[in-house]
């Protein structure tokens, strides 16, 4: 049985709570220091498989760019791979906030516009 203690900083909100996680066989068995349940979930995921939302931009056919995000966190280790895919995407205007530009850009996440462009 492997057991260890990990100290994390929660990134879910600007409070940035210092969280201590007791990990046993790769899973969190005790989380402390978090101020809320989001922090507990963050810590539990972080010790198993860290995930991040990607925010970046996508080119439009008219030469403009529009900001986008993955609609859910993707595996941190896949971030650069997914970025390469995103950088090949060219969308056509008009684009509205919430428009899905790519259904599955990786890890099952969709690429969604976060701004409007005419």
């Amino acid at each position, binding site marked *: 049985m492997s057991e260890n203690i990990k100290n994390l900083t929660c*990134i*879910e*909100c*600007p409070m940035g709570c210092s969280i201590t996680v007791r990990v046993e066989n790769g899973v969190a068995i005790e989380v402390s220091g978090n101020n809320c349940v989001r922090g507990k979930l963050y810590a539990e995921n972080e010790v198993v498989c860290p995930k991040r939302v*990607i925010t970046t931009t996508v080119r439009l056919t008219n030469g403009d760019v529009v*900001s986008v995000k993955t609609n859910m966190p993707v595996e941190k280790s896949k971030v650069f791979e997914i970025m390469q895919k995103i950088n090949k995407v060219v969308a056509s205007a008009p684009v509205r906030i919430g428009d899905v530009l790519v259904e599955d850009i990786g890890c099952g996440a969709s690429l969604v516009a*976060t701004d*409007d462009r005419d």
Partner: protein
Amino acid sequence: MGENKMKLNYDIVVIGGGPAGLAAAISAYDNGARDILVIEREKRLGGILRQCIHNGFGLTRFKESLSGPEYSARFIEELKKREIDVALETTVLSLTQDKKVQVINEQGVFTISAKAVILAMGCRERSRGALNIPGSRPAGIYSAGTAQKYINLNGYMPGKRVVILGSGDIGLIMARRMTLEGAKVLAVSEIMPYSSGLKRNIVQCLNDFDIPLYLSHTITEIRGDKRVTGVTISQVDENKRPIKGTEKHFECDTILFSVGLIPENEITKSANIPLSPRTRGAVVYQNRETLVDGIFACGNTIQVHDLVDFVSEESEIAGKAAATYILEGAKEKDSVATINGNNIGYVLPHRIDKNQKGHVKLFFRVTSTFRNCVINVVSGGEVIASKKRNIAVPGEMETLILTQDKIALLSDDITVELKEGV
């Protein structure tokens, strides 16, 4: 919303169409004011958040993590539902105490008469000029905010190998942004022994990508003739003087500096509205009225906020107060000052008017990192509000609520102070 419509007189003129101006205009309308104009110099509403494409906005207000443009869009949508005029690509040149607003746009220069004015011009980045870095002045040196604009709004990458001077949040965010776009961020150099950015940004923008943060370091040399080719950073002593023998050299083509934000107040100065030397914005009462009757101010133009959620909250206070001023006229004030005591950098609001109803949320920053401390609000020798903190850092704005019953009893100025080791 009357898009790009402008008359020559209004009950309320809002200067700036960022999160502060938007929230203030909406709140003024919802509190009964009707004849409102928002003036914005850019082509679009939304302010600086248009270029802040990362997420983390709106957690307090909407309980979800939005990107900057998404956060702004929620307010723009609300604005559009109301009869509020908007003048885009229109810049305010000056303001007078009797509320004449001089503006310029493609049609020419106009003077708009207002009964009340809300200042919401935001902040700007501290310039490199103030930094005094030795060495030449080649191309490839940008403020973090300028780089943010180039990359996120224009789709243009300013460089490939980057050193960032200053660990403010925008610098940290840009370290990640440029890394994602394929650049190599070699170092973030911070002259203070602590970062001025949020801890979560250190974790998700630097640690995630193994970007080193050098605390107590500064840039001591910039190399390059036409374009930057490298920098040297050195450790500094307690007096911020570089220590010989601690130099680290980096080959880079780009330097970003992120050395702080200053409230934008050229317009405020043009009207001779008193400014606070501490916040570098207008002196305000708790309803965000300046020392000139009927002129209000909110958002980053009065204090640099870490969180746009608080900007919106503050601006709603200003909007409501402007509406009350229009509907009920100016009111007599009976006020005390707030003072930054030991270990506190500033306190806002600067004055508390005892005639105004309701609790007051005090905003302030501590001057350095403190552990196990207590923050007290003291008036007439008595502690009237207090809170304990395990850790308090300058990068994070602190708040404390003063209840109405305590305010009613105030006879003396109030001081906010921090005591260590409790």
